[in-house]
C-alpha cells in the first residue's frame, strides 16, 4: 500500500514540512517555485494541444500588468485583481493569438516569441503604465502565510485540475488535435475553437501567475515581459517531461530552487538553462517524470511477483 500512496503523498508531506521549517527566505523561494510551476503548467497545457509557445512571458506580463494597473490606478484590493486579471488576461491573450491558431507549424512559436519582447518596447516608448519605472508600492498579501498557502494551493489546484481535465473526453480532444488535427476535423470538431479554448485556459493560468507575482513583489514593470519568464517554464517542462503536466511541476521544483542556489553565477544561469533544454531534448526527450514513473512501475511489477 505504502508504495502506491508514496509517490503521490510524498511531495505533499515534504512541502508541509517545508512550510513550517523553512526560513523566510526559502518561503519566498517556495512561493516563486509555485508561481513558476503554474506558468510551466500553463505552457504544458498548450503543448498537450500541440502548440509550442516561446513567449509564456506574454501571459505572465499581461496578467501582471492588469493586476498592477487595477491596484495602482483604481486601488482594487488583491482579492479582486487576482480573479479579474486571470479572466481578462486569458481573454486578451486568446484574442491576440487566436488568428495564429489557423496556421499549422511553427507560426505560433514565432509569434509568441515576438509579442512579449515587443510589448516591452511599447511600454518603454509610450511611457504608459509607469513606463520604464513601472508601478510600485502595490498592495501585498496580508501575511507571508497567506501568500505561501495561496500560491501552493493554486499550484496544486492547477496541477490536479489540468491532470483531471486531460483525462476527460474534452481533454482527449485537445490531445487528439496534437496527434492528428485532420482526423479531428473530419470528425466534425472545430479545432480552431478548441485551440482557442485551450489558449484561454493557458492564458488565464499564466495571467494568474503574473498577477500573483505583482502582489508578491508589490511591483510591476517591464521585466515581467523578459525572456526569463518564457524560458524557465519551458526548461521546467522539458526537464520534467513535456506534455505530462506532472513533469513541468516536478521540473519547476527542481529548477527554481536550483536557480536560487546558482544565483551567484549570474548570466551563466541562463546558459545552463539553455544547455538543459538541448541536452534533455536530445538525450532524455521524455523527461524525468515519465522516466521515473516507468522505473516506478517496473518496481511495482517486481513487488507483485514477490
Amino acid at each position, binding site marked *: 500500500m505504502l508504495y502506491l500512496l508514496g509517490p503521490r503523498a510524498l511531495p505533499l508531506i515534504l512541502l508541509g514540512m517545508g512550510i513550517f521549517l523553512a526560513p523566510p527566505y526559502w518561503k519566498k523561494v517556495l512561493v516563486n517555485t509555485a508561481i513558476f510551476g503554474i506558468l510551466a503548467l500553463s505552457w504544458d497545457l498548450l503543448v498537450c494541444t500541440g502548440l509550442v509557445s516561446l513567449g509564456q512571458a506574454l501571459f505572465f506580463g499581461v496578467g501582471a500588468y492588469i493586476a498592477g494597473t487595477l491596484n495602482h490606478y483604481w486601488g482594487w484590493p488583491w482579492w479582486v485583481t487576482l480573479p479579474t486579471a486571470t479572466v481578462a488576461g486569458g481573454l486578451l491573450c486568446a484574442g491576440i493569438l487566436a488568428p495564429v491558431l489557423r496556421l499549422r507549424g511553427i507560426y505560433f512559436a514565432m509569434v509568441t516569441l515576438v509579442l512579449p519582447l515587443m510589448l516591452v518596447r511599447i511600454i518603454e516608448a509610450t511611457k504608459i503604465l509607469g513606463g520604464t519605472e513601472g508601478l510600485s508600492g502595490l498592495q501585498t498579501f496580508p501575511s507571508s502565510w497567506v501568500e505561501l498557502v495561496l500560491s501552493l494551493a493554486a499550484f496544486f489546484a492547477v496541477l490536479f485540475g489540468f491532470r483531471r481535465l486531460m483525462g476527460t*473526453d*474534452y481533454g*482527449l*480532444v485537445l*490531445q*487528439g488535435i*496534437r*496527434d*492528428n488535427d*485532420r*482526423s*479531428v*476535423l*473530419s*470528425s*466534425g*470538431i*472545430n*479545432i480552431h475553437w478548441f485551440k482557442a479554448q485551450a489558449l484561454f485556459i493557458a492564458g488565464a493560468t499564466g495571467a494568474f501567475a503574473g498577477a500573483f507575482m505583482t502582489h508578491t513583489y508589490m511591483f510591476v514593470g517591464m521585466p515581467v515581459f523578459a525572456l526569463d519568464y518564457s524560458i524557465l517554464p519551458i526548461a521546467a517542462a522539458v526537464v520534467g517531461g513535456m506534455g505530462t503536466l506532472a513533469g513541468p511541476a516536478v521540473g519547476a521544483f527542481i529548477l527554481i530552487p536550483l536557480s536560487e542556489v546558482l544565483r551567484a553565477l549570474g548570466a551563466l544561469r541562463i546558459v545552463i538553462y539553455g544547455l538543459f533544454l538541448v541536452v534533455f531534448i536530445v538525450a532524455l526527450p521524455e523527461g524525468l517524470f515519465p522516466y521515473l514513473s516507468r522505473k516506478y512501475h517496473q518496481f511495482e511489477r517486481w513487488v507483485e511477483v514477490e
Partner: protein
Amino acid sequence: MEVHPLLQVQELTKDFGGLRALDRISFTLNQGESLGIIGPNGSGKTTLVNVITGFLRPTGGRVRFRGRTISGMGPHRIARLGLGRTFQMARPFYHLPAYKNLVIPLFSPRVRRLAGGRYGDRDAVAIDLLEEVGFERDSFVPFKPASVLPHGYLKRLELARALAIRPELLILDELFSGLSMAEVSSTVPIIEHLQAQGITLIMIEHRLRELFRIVDRVIVLNFGRKIAEGTPAEVMESEDVKKAYLGSE
C-alpha cells in the same frame, strides 16, 4: 418538393500552382449507391476526396450535398452534415489506447445531435464500434495504445473513426492498401454490412477485384480527368481505361 441526389459534383477543378490535379470532374451519387473511384497513382483521387470534404478549396466548380452547396465550407462543418472519410495514410491518435481514439469523434457535435443532445457513455460505444470493425471484444487489443497496433488494425481503426460520427456518406480512401489477402477478405463483409444499413459509399481502391464486388458503379480518373464512368464491366472494356492502366501505346 424537388428531390436532390445525395452528392452532386459539378465541374470540379483544382490547381496546385501550375499542376491541374482535377479537371472539371462531374458526377452524381444517389442515396444508398456505392461508387468506386479508380485511377493510376497521382491521378487525383485523393485530391478529389480532399476537395469534397473541404480539406482543399476548389479552384472552380462546386459540390452539393442534398442540394446544399458545401464547397467553401470548412471540413468540420462538412463532416457535421454527415460526410465521413478515412485517410489514405492512417495516422491514429498515437498517445491514446485504441478505444479512446474513438472517443474523440464521438465527442463530435453531430453525434450529440443525433443522440438528442445527450452524452452517452462514449467508452462503451467506442468498444462496440471497434467490435463492429473486427477488433476482438474479449481481447486486450482495444485497450492497447494505438502506437503499437499493427497496420491492419490501424486501417480498421481508421474506418471505425469515420463510422463514429454515423455518416450518411462514407468516403474510403484506399482502405485496403497494405492489407493482407486475409485481412481484405475479412474487411469486405464489414463494408457490405454498412451498405446493407443504407450508408452511401465512395471507395477509392487499387485492388480492383475486391472493389468490383462491392460497388455498383465506377469512375476512372487519369491526370485529373474523368475518362470513364459506368458499371465495373463497362469500365474495364473501355479503351481509354486500358491505355491509362497499361501505359499508352
